[in-house]
């Protein structure tokens, strides 16, 4: 029979604006998916176009992702952006088939003429989080909870641990992961909550949680303890409606400006450019940053700025693996 690509090519000559494909977390994951969505919405509003959002089902394979991206490209969306490292291979595969479309991918770095890869210096912002944690800790013990022990999350761990150590070598860091290799780690707040509870019980008073949706469990526990601080990830968790009642315990968040990256890409494509190559969003260009909402780190802003300065001018190299 007829192929779906053939049938659609004629109908959808015109450009349709950005098509965004999320991984299982979905567009409102309170995390970097949400951030990407915000960026797209902003760009859309500014340029008068409507972005199309699609989300993966549980247990998808590469074939499903390829199909989703193909569908978007085929329907004329441009740029087509895959959010999450799992989209890396799929983007590479689909981009080859649609040379006239610009593809963007977050957290992965596949090669391709028409691929714009956006990777972030999570370790750098985590370093700053470590600085903040070390400075704010009264007990001299801070903790890190990762959702799943994989390379991406290890980047957060590495930066955080280094940041703490560089700021105050006497502060101890407890590092723990919810699961060794199981995506349940990003959707198990109950477990994160127990883990945080145990850490708090051991006098840890600042906890940095990089665990997707599980993070809310940890933040809630921290909020239950006087004087303890939670540090969020990916987006400014202070601002999230779902976490509103814990606001006062959210010290700061290690923010990935996925929104900016995505907005820039959309704008560029809209303006007829076709950016490509791997682009690392670092501290230097505000690709990652420490959130200041709530003003809880105002008192240590100087130290943080100093650390930022040193990272930016290369005085400190932050390790990306523990």
């Amino acid at each position, binding site marked *: 029979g007829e192929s779906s690509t053939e049938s659609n090519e004629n109908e959808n000559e015109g450009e349709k604006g950005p098509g965004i494909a999320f991984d299982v977390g979905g567009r409102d994951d309170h995390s970097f998916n949400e951030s990407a969505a915000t960026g797209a919405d902003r760009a859309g509003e500014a340029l008068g176009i409507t972005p199309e959002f699609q*989300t993966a089902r549980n247990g998808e394979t590469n074939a499903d992702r390829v199909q989703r991206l193909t569908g978007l490209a085929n329907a004329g969306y441009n740029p087509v952006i895959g959010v999450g490292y799992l989209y890396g291979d799929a983007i590479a595969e689909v981009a080859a088939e649609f040379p006239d479309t610009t593809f963007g991918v977050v957290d992965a770095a596949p090669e391709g003429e028409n691929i714009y890869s956006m990777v972030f210096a999570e370790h750098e912002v985590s370093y700053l989080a470590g600085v903040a944690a070390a400075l704010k800790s009264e007990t001299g013990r801070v903790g890190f909870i990762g959702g799943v*022990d994989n390379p991406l999350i290890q980047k957060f761990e590495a930066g955080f641990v280094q940041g703490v150590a560089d700021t105050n070598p006497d502060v101890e860091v407890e590092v723990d992961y919810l699961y060794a290799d199981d995506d349940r780690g990003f*959707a198990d*707040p*109950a477990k994160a909550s127990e*883990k945080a*509870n*145990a850490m708090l019980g051991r006098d840890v008073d600042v906890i940095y949680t990089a665990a997707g949706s599980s993070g809310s469990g940890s933040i*809630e526990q921290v909020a239950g303890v006087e004087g303890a601080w939670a540090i969020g990830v990916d987006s400014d968790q202070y601002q999230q409606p*779902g976490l509103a009642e814990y606001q006062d315990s959210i010290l700061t968040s290690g923010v990935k400006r996925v929104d900016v990256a995505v907005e820039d890409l959309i704008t560029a494509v809209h303006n007829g450019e076709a950016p490509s190559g791997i682009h690392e969003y670092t501290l230097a260009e505000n690709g990652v940053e420490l959130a200041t909402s709530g003003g809880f780190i105002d008192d240590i802003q100087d130290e943080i700025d100093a650390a930022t300065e040193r990272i930016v001018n290369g005085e400190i190299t932050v390790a990306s693996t523990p």
Partner: protein
Amino acid sequence: MALLLVAGALLLLSLVRVITDENSLTGTDQWVSAMTFAVPIGLAGLGGLWAERSGVINIGLEGMMMLGLFAAGWIGWQHGPWAAVAAGIVGGALGGLVHAVATVTFGVDHIVSGVAINILALGVVQFLAKQWFGGEGSEAAAAGGNDKQSPPMERIEPFSVPGLSDWLGDLADKHWFLVSDTAGIARALVHNVSWLTVLAVLLFVGTYLLLWRTSFGLRLRSCGENPQATESLGVNVYLYKYLALAVSGGLAGLGGAYLAVLIRMYQDGQTGGRGYLGLATMIFGNWRPGGVAAGAGLFGFMDALQTRGGGAVVHATLLLFALLLLGLSVWQYLRGRRVVAFALAGTAVLLWAWYAATDTMPLELVTASPYLTTLLVLTLFAQRLRVPRAVGKPYRRGQDS
């Protein structure tokens, strides 16, 4: 007998605690947390028990739990946590009734129907969550809901028994052999106790009383042993199976609601196989409430240990197992089973050697520890299990076996 076992377990724990210096083994928080992990699994297991005692295998517990989780999240953010609990029970019970219609009325194979319910529940829950929580511009979305989460609900505050809790706490902090250990564990019963845990305990006791001490229970259990005989005595077997499955689903749903109340929302995937684990604890527990509680307790204990303590503490349990196996070995030897005894003793020595040679355990092994423990315990004890005779067999009114 049971008391003796408990005393033995306490002694063993204290011993290991003293040797390894892992105070968290008998710490209050560890045990509170063990309860937290045990309760949803235990409730699912109890649900399984109700179903299987009435003769119906319920592999759909996971799905019923999901329904409970969802219903609780949905009602919870609008009407508060207690309404969520009720909704969870209703949601799960609906799943149980679907299972009843399929297995009892239509005579579908129990496992087939259970698997179908798991698939269906997942589909329904994800579909509705997207519709109701993630709808753009909806009230729920504004309150913090999205495709994968409901908006948060109120908290149910835990309670502590004032004087007792502190007194036991002081005692526990002294780290006296056995005394402090007992105090630490006992304190888990009076300190920061969740009302839902209390409810769960009541349900276990209530299940025992209802199923083993009343005529209702006798009838229900006999449906699982010999439904033909039961029917021939004028008991409406279908009715009892329906009831049992509704309760079964309700309990699994309550397990889901417990999770929802714990994390204060519906979170996609939060059940994470707990329904299946419930099924395992039911078999583990020999289809008795006490056994299910013990199974869930063991699981919760291991899970809490690994979640809270990580490698070092789980490492300490190696010694626990070594001692346990040694004890078993002696017992088997006394009963004249030499080969078994030597095999057990050998394993114990190996475990001890492992314990002595290392001082922590890799994360991967730690996360697997609850499952490994369950497997180990079952391997040692499985042959003493007694399945309800007619479980899983299709039953039609007026038909010979």
